[in-house]
């Protein structure tokens, strides 16, 4: 049971860490959902074309990072609203994946191919654990982490001390995109297929998890695992047929909403 919960938490944790990085840089990226979809699709496609899952995942992460960096540059260059640009990416990701899927593979539905295997729990669980540890370390102990935290809290101070806050914002978006894409790849390789709609709102829940985890890498991981556990329980309930499957799809969002509200209230109370 536990390995399975951890494995199902992995995509959420990866995206959540990405969200954490953007939040710390002061410009929350609400594009996690879109990049997870994109990553899931690209991982599948690249693996099919190259025959290697590693190539597939790398391609997903790289493409996402490039797009993420470019989006940040666009926001900076044109003074655009970063939320709307991120929302645009969510929409574009869905549309583009649909379009390419139809054009290249002739279908909008599930994509299965023998060259894209189900990899089991281990690889992504390990990757996720390493990511969490690395992030926690970098944030608290390194120069990069210090400057990233400064970017979010007082970019002017960083600028005056010779740093470049814009570079950190762009980097946080690039990393977040890459991590979310890897989260999507994890979804693909869990079942060995690309399923449209498979992301199912995890990108948005990842945002909530950033706050639930008190903006701290280990907290994010813990919150994600708690979520995955709740999903597991609801999956069991699904199996027993007591609550209709369709309804249960709405449960994560409802749960996220409640927890989001509670954390916000608690944080407000604490700072009084």
């Amino acid at each position, binding site marked *: 049971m536990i390995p399975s919960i951890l494995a199902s938490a992995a995509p959420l944790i990866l995206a959540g860490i990405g969200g954490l990085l953007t939040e710390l840089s002061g410009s929350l990226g609400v594009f996690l959902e879109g990049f997870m979809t994109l990553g899931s699709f690209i991982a599948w496609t690249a693996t099919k074309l190259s025959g290697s899952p590693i190539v597939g995942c790398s391609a997903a992460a790289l493409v996402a990072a490039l797009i993420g960096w470019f989006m940040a540059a666009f926001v900076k260059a044109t003074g655009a609203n970063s939320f709307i640009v991120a929302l645009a990416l969510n929409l574009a990701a869905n549309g583009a994946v649909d379009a390419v899927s139809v054009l290249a593979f002739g279908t909008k539905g599930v994509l299965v191919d023998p060259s894209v295997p189900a990899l089991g729990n281990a690889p992504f669980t390990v990757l996720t654990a390493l990511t969490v540890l690395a992030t926690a370390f970098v944030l608290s*102990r*390194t*120069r*990069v982490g*210090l*400057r990233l*935290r*400064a970017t979010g*809290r*007082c970019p*002017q*101070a*960083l*600028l*005056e*001390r*010779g*740093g*470049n806050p814009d570079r950190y914002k762009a980097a946080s978006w690039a990393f977040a995109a890459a991590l979310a894409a890897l989260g999507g790849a994890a979804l693909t390789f869990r079942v060995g297929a690309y399923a449209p709609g498979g992301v199912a709102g995890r990108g948005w829940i990842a945002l909530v998890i950033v706050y639930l985890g008190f903006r701290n890498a280990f907290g994010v991981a813990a919150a994600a695992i708690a979520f995955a556990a709740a999903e597991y329980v609801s999956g069991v309930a699904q199996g027993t047929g007591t609550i209709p499957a369709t309804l249960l799809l709405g449960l994560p969002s409802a749960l996220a909403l409640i927890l989001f509200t509670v954390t916000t209230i608690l944080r407000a109370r604490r*700072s*009084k």
Partner: protein
Amino acid sequence: MLGADLRGIRKYFPENGVEALSEISFDLHPGEIHALVGENGAGKSTLMHILSGLIEPSAGTISVDGVERRFDSPAAALRAGIGLVRQHPQTVPGFALWEDCVLGSEPTRLGIIKRSAAREAVRDLSCRWGFDLDPDARTESLAVSQKQKAAVLSLLMRDAKYLLLDEPTAVLAPLETERLFDLLLNLKAAGHGIVLISHKLPETLRVADRVTVLRKGRLVGTRDAAELDADELRSMMFGPAENKKEEPPITMNEEGETALSIRGLTTRLSGRPLLRGIDLDLRRGRILGVAGVRESGLETLEFATAGLIRAESGSIELLGKRIEGRGAKAFREAGGVYVPADRMGIALAPRLSINDNLSVHPLSRAHGFLSPAELWTRSRAVMEAARVAGDPKQTASSFSGGTLQRLILARELAENPDFILFSEPGWGLDAASRMELDRRIKRLARAGKAILLMSTDLDELISLSDSIVTLRDGLVSGRFARTEFTDTEELREAIGAAMIGTEVCLDK
């Protein structure tokens, strides 16, 4: 040839079509204190922003130690050894002091910060210069004077040779200013080159080696401080015809009934006490000045009186009505208006049109349908009263600071108030506008209004107020009646002492 050298600097801002600097040449030697003076808007800050890499000049060259440089960011200037200390230095909230100091020049091994090395370095430097700063202190808990020291420390840690200080003394009490000047002299002795921007002429002349005067973006001249006296300096700054005259002694207006009465005002923020029981009285026809450094509770008192925040306990009675905790609406209904220091942030909405901004008071009380024609006429009338030309449809952000101050004042006075709360009214205004504003304020008092004047500028307070109270640490630390003092210097000293408390030594 050692030193920082600016030649032919020109800065043009296309957004407002303003030529902020024309053909400025300025140089800074190592081991000297070079004062940069001029009235507000003369271009002093702009010049220093260029030298420290925050903005780029439209024309001209910068050379450091004989090598021509281009500073496209503060990082580049820091690499050349030039750093800027602002009046209100920015520190990163939530960081420890040592983290804030090493930010940008962190001692690292393979990218990992060497914590103990960093903390030790901060502690050592702090001791060496007599700062008495705790590396682990939280940045939020630092007073402005400490933040300035931390900023200097941060620059010294990266071996900055040239330190530019932008109006540091404006936010310091007299005793803290003394200590700052001692520090500057020590730094100078150690070979650093220092630029000191200040509008406090007597003190500046005392420490400076050379003085450069700017006026309206042009260089008036650079002289050795030893050759200058205050009068000659003033004439360089303002021109012979605009010499500031000594204020005639204040004549007291007829005293009216009590307009404002504050008793026991107390409040805290996150456990930190901001006001600890303030008592104040103000009568009609009088101007009461409130002096204090920024952290003394001045701002809190201001916001509480204007109804922007609610104090925990105490009472505020304005023109017979109790308004504490009842918001800005009650404040206005009682007959008060507020002209805040933060013009763009509080008194205006930058993205709304001027028409909207000027109509805000009647419209926040009105109900039902509006008549655009009526509003238009009203806005036009206010703009005329403020002698501002332009289209009311434009957004507020497209006007300049001085213009906005006039508009705000005209808007507030159109409400026919009996009580006016001014906060830093002369901030950012040039000398002529300032004098006119002073005259208006005095006229308002003569007309029977009650005026509360909150300011960190002692000169402004002394020239306008009938009486002055000082705040220190959330308490009233002194009350002074203007008529008791014939010598303004004596008054300044007394106020300064009350503001900071002579028996308390800040740094030991």
